[in-house]
């Protein structure tokens, strides 16, 4: 108790800095996953991609980031058990942020495909189980989070497979692919708008003070979907079928239509990413803030201050604006094999899965979900070559990240505890 009274403001400021830095790192690194395909497919220029990502990452983080943030904040550990020693929660969350941050920096330098989500969840479980007690961890919640990590790539894969199959049947394998693309693509755009707004309206907007029931959400989402689809049709009207000659072969302009669609799915992906990954940075911060602001009370019922998601959103956007362009460019250049019709199927499937996770408060890995989605398109014979070795490495890193995140956070936890007491 005295620790909080004495050092409260300093701990708060330190927490904010750590949280902001994490958000910054997420913005600088992970956003490339959402925007890379669009830049690679030349659906957006780099500058446009940065702008779109800034707007939609922020909107996603601020509007739909609440559920996952609350899971990180009070879903994994039961704060009530810490009522007698609230400072432990503060140290632990601080340690988790540091652990995840340090691990991400190491992994990025080594080029290992780690997930922010796995790092932070591993870190929180680690300090709680070892530093406080195994019973303080809400194991059933952790179980559902871990199973969501297995299910989300599979789900994204199934969705992307179905989307791409429908594209094959409705558009690509028909007599007039270009005309059919123009006819059906607004339908896909509707789907993008509908899914995103449905999940957001249904689950995300509580903290903004807007609570809608299922019926209302459905109505509004259909409306938003139609508006966005109409906007898409307007843009599509200007797309003309220009043939491109490459070698001796003439390519139909059908991919140009999908290029328009990709702009929409990129927005959706940025939104989904913001809504899920902001929690990795500000979830622990939210826990720290709620303890310190209530003067050491562990008030699990209290609502989260609005500025926390704002801080996370600003952190992501600034990381994106400062370093994102470089990463997006690199990622974008590497994936010319992913044409717009493939890219949109993968990205839309991943965005839908991630947004669903955000709505239900499950912290997912965007990267892994996208990997699943790309595999789905590959299974539908949409991509000529997929390296399963990389998939294997990703799974290994997945398994390694949890104990490493946990180990580091235990280390930091006892260090902080030692310093302050």
């Amino acid at each position, binding site marked *: 108790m005295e620790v909080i009274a004495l050092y409260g403001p300093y701990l708060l400021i330190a927490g904010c800095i750590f949280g902001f830095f994490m958000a910054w790192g997420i913005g600088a690194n992970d956003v490339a*996953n959402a925007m890379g395909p669009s830049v690679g497919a030349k659906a957006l220029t780099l500058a446009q991609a940065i702008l779109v990502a800034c707007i939609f990452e922020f909107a996603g983080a601020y509007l739909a980031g609440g559920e996952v943030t609350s899971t990180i904040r009070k879903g994994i550990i039961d704060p009530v058990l810490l009522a007698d020693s609230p400072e432990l929660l503060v140290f632990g969350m601080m340690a988790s942020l540091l652990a995840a941050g340090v691990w991400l920096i190491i992994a990025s330098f080594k080029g290992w495909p780690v997930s922010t989500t796995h790092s932070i969840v591993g870190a929180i479980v680690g300090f709680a189980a070892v530093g406080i007690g195994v019973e303080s961890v809400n194991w059933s919640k952790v179980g559902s989070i871990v199973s969501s990590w297995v299910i989300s790539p599979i789900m994204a894969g199934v969705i992307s497979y179905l989307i791409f199959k429908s594209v094959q049947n409705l558009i690509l394998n028909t007599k007039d692919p270009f005309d059919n693309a123009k006819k059906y693509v607004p339908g896909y755009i509707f789907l993008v708008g509908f899914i995103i707004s449905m999940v957001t309206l249904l689950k995300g907007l509580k903290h903004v003070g807007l609570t809608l029931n299922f019926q209302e959400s459905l109505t509004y989402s259909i409306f938003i979907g139609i508006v966005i689809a109409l906007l898409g049709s307007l843009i599509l009207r200007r797309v003309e079928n220009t043939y491109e000659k490459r070698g001796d072969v003439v390519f139909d302009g059908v991919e140009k239509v999908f290029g328009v669609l990709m702009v929409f799915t990129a927005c959706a992906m940025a939104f989904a990413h913001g809504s899920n990954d902001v929690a990795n940075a500000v979830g622990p911060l939210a826990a720290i803030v709620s303890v310190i602001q209530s003067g050491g009370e562990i008030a699990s019922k209290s609502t989260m201050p609005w500025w926390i998601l704002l801080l996370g959103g600003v952190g992501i956007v600034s990381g994106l604006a400062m370093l994102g362009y470089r990463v997006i460019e690199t990622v974008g250049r590497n994936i010319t094999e992913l044409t717009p019709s493939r890219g949109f199927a993968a990205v839309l499937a991943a965005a839908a899965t991630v947004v669903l996770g955000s709505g239900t408060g499950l912290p997912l890995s965007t990267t892994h979900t*996208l990997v699943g989605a790309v595999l789905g398109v590959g299974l539908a014979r949409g991509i000529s070559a997929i390296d399963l*070795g990389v998939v294997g490495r990703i799974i290994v890193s997945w398994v390694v990240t949890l104990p490493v995140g946990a180990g580091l956070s235990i280390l930091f936890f006892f260090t902080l505890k030692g310093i302050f007491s």
Partner: protein
Amino acid sequence: MKVTGFTDIIKKSPFGPIRAHMLVSKASVDELITFLKSAIDSDWNEAVKSRKVISDLENQADTLKAETRGLLTKSLFLAVPREDILDLIKLADDIPNTVKDISGLMIGRQMEIPAKISSSFLHFAKEAAVISDAASEAVNYIDELFQFSFGGNAAIKMQQLIEKLDSLENKNDQTEINLRAELFAIEKDLPPVNVIFLYDVINKIGELSDRAEQVGHRISLIASR
């Protein structure tokens, strides 16, 4: 700082180098025509130059073959069976090899092509060049096939390309029969050893067309799976 994202799982399509390989094969068959013209004129200086070009092209083809195989690592998940791609590149690689054999054989023996059959002979070789051109077109078209994921118009167009290849090859078979008949008619007036090798060269040129046709068939197999 290296970033590893989901995009790392998408690998370069192996069809890029195969396409390049086919273009090299086509160029080597074209060069063979130039070579044969020089041989018919008994201009062995020019022939040696052509032979050098053919040999360089064959080396290029080998490099591209190796590159294709390098892209087909075990961990790769492909939209088409790996064996089919390996077969395709193996078949296609026979073309520049055979061209090199023919030019080597003719230079080594300074083979004279009898004036009576020289125009038929050249015509026969030119047909082989047209066929390898058609095969190259089909290989090129694989990309389009991918764009439309093996269905619709692209599949129909590919079928047409393969049919064209087949009919060209049938025509070429007939040309070969006629050429052999012409040679047969004059063979008793020629040194027997020369005749044997002339038949051998005709055989090898016929092989060029066969290989090109087989490349087409392999592609249609890939497309139909």
